[in-house]
């Protein structure tokens, strides 16, 4: 058989089934796997609901008939001057010690939390990826200096920085965003640097160099697509971290200053009243917990979908069951002289 004949046959085989096969990108495959993950989809729905609430916060305020920062001393406070419980006088989740609507305040708090979570993650990711790529690709003294800088950022006590900045400039939203971004980019940068270090030794990077591609082109067109997966996972998981971080700073009085409704501020106010008004503490805390859990579970789902080799603990049981179902039944004990079972 001549080569061309083999080639012809190979071509015929190749062409037949290919019509139905679509070239699937990494993202399409990830989305397909993510869609099968019930936990991740549930988390996504929860996040969408929270985000919708945050965006529509003024509408909720109008519906409740209460503004977030207005005190309602006549209806919102009990006869003894304490907060009213949920359901009284149209206060769905009750009021705080000044007679403000807790429901409206919690909804407005979601705005700050999500905004800080997304913006800091965006800033930290862009900064972390760029610096990680540059240090990893160029190496040498650039890498040495930045790697030590990253180490010192990761070793720095964030409370000290937040405290000193709050003292010098006064607590504000930009400072909160700055502090959180500053402590988030370093972790991302470190991961990206490690990946870039390993990817830049691949042969396809050498191929790009032999074509005459410059360092920026190689970094952002050849290396970056190869590390988007870990970056996306890190970014998804850094959103809940940033939300908790923000709430912590608010709670300590180092974040967004008090009249503004944020979950951290509400919790800070609740700490002297929770014994008489449980709702004051429970509802903002629930909002915070549900949001961070939803983001964390989504992040886990994204990670699993990106890398099908990793398994989550409670996903393992499901997989085992499926394996058992598909596995062939155990071979029956063979009687002497019996025919071997045919497959």
């Amino acid at each position, binding site marked *: 058989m001549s080569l061309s004949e083999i080639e012809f046959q190979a071509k015929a085989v190749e062409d037949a089934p290919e019509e139905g096969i679509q070239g699937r990108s990494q993202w399409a495959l990830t989305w397909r796997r993510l869609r099968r993950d019930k936990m991740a989809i549930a988390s996504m729905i929860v996040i969408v609901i929270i985000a919708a609430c945050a965006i529509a916060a003024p509408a909720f305020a109008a519906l409740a008939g209460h503004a977030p920062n207005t005190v309602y001393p006549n209806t919102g406070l009990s006869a003894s001057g304490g907060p009213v419980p949920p359901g009284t006088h149209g206060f769905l989740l009750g009021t705080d010690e000044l007679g403000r609507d807790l429901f409206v305040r919690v909804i407005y708090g979601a705005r700050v939390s999500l905004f800080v979570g997304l913006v800091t993650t965006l800033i930290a990711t862009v900064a972390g990826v760029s610096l990680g790529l540059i240090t990893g690709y160029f190496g040498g003294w650039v890498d040495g200096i930045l790697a030590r800088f990253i180490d010192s950022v990761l070793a720095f006590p964030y409370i000290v920085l937040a405290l000193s900045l709050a003292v010098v400039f006064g607590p504000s939203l930009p400072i909160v965003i700055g502090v959180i971004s500053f402590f988030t980019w370093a972790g991302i940068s470190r991961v990206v640097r490690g990946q870039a270090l390993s990817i830049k030794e691949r*042969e396809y990077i050498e191929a790009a160099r*032999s*074509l005459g591609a410059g360092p920026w082109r190689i970094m952002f067109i050849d290396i970056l*697509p190869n590390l988007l997966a870990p970056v996306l996972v890190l970014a998804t998981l850094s959103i809940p971290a940033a939300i908790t971080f923000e709430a912590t700073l608010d709670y300590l009085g180092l974040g967004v200053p008090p009249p503004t409704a944020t979950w951290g501020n509400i919790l800070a106010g609740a700490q002297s009243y929770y014994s008489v008004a449980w709702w004051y503490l429970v509802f903002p805390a629930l909002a915070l917990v549900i949001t961070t859990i939803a983001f964390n579970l989504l992040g886990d789902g994204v990670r699993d979908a990106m890398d099908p080799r990793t398994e989550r603990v409670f996903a393992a049981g499901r997989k085992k069951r499926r394996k058992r179902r598909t596995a062939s039944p155990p071979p029956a004990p063979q009687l002497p002289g019996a025919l071997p079972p045919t497959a």
Partner: protein
Amino acid sequence: MSETLPRDAATAGPGGTDDVLVRVDDLVKYFPVRGGGLISRTVAQVQAVDGVSLSIGRGQTVGLVGETGCGKSTLARCIAGLIPVTSGTVTFEGQNITNLSRRHMQPYRREIQMIFQDPYGSLNPRRRVGSIIGDPFAVHKTASGSARKKAVQELMERVGLNPEHFNRYPAEFSGGQRQRIGVARALALRPKLIICDEPVSALDVSIQAQVLNLLADLQQDYGLSYLFIAHDLEVVRHVSDSVIVMYLGRIAEAGPKDPVYDSPRHPYTNALLSAAPAADPDAAASRQRIILTGDVPSPINPPSGCRFHPRCPKAQELCGQQDPPLEVKAGDPSTHVTACHFPVQEGEVLARSGRASGGQPR
């Protein structure tokens, strides 16, 4: 070293010296070995390529053979300008292109392209094939948009790929198809020289033939020159006009392929050729294998004199003391050069019959 090297050792074409595309003169590439500790300093040098001269004629194929670690790939990367050269010069069409900056090298990148060994490692797994093959156009800004797409599809068709597959990822192709993608990428800018760094070593034998035939067709159509690096002596013989045998960073023997293959002078060339399996069982039964003892010595601390002498069956005292020049031996054509004090004569038997295993004629 260099003064004794005939410059046109590897140019076997009828054009001779006038039609030289690439000339390499006394190329040296040492890699520093850095010691540990806080302040790293160079403690040793890996002498990957140590004084190699060669030239490649227009439209010619020069085969480069040798054991793993003898400096073949390093030499290729030096010529392609991918790694800086320690000393020596690389000349392309009369222009010195040694250690040019990236900007100044850019016009020569169009002329010199590479095909890599690993069809899996040399294609970016996260980019679509169309974008990989279109990369040269994007980098050199020669075509964009629909013109680039059209050029890419023409290239894919030329190398035997289905042009409709340009939206696929490399993982969706087989090894042979991937190597064709690599060929298409190398071909995109219509280079004059393509350096093939073991282009078929990673492929199945039947696929090897397809890729080799493709390379031969392309050479005819576009008048390409190839520097063809391979382990497989038969592959090199099939594709090359002339052959260079390297050992431990130096040229052991070089010349047009027929004299080198038919009457090898250097004991190392003899050993390499005798190790190649023969397809004919009768020939295989009667062939005498020259078994080399030991491994290739470390290029950090190469042997004195002739670098091959610790493993050479013909080594004498002189070999360990004096470096043999690369010169024409008696009875050889003027293009066939050998670096050996005691070149192998026609009909000489090198196999040591006294050795226990494999040394005996079977």
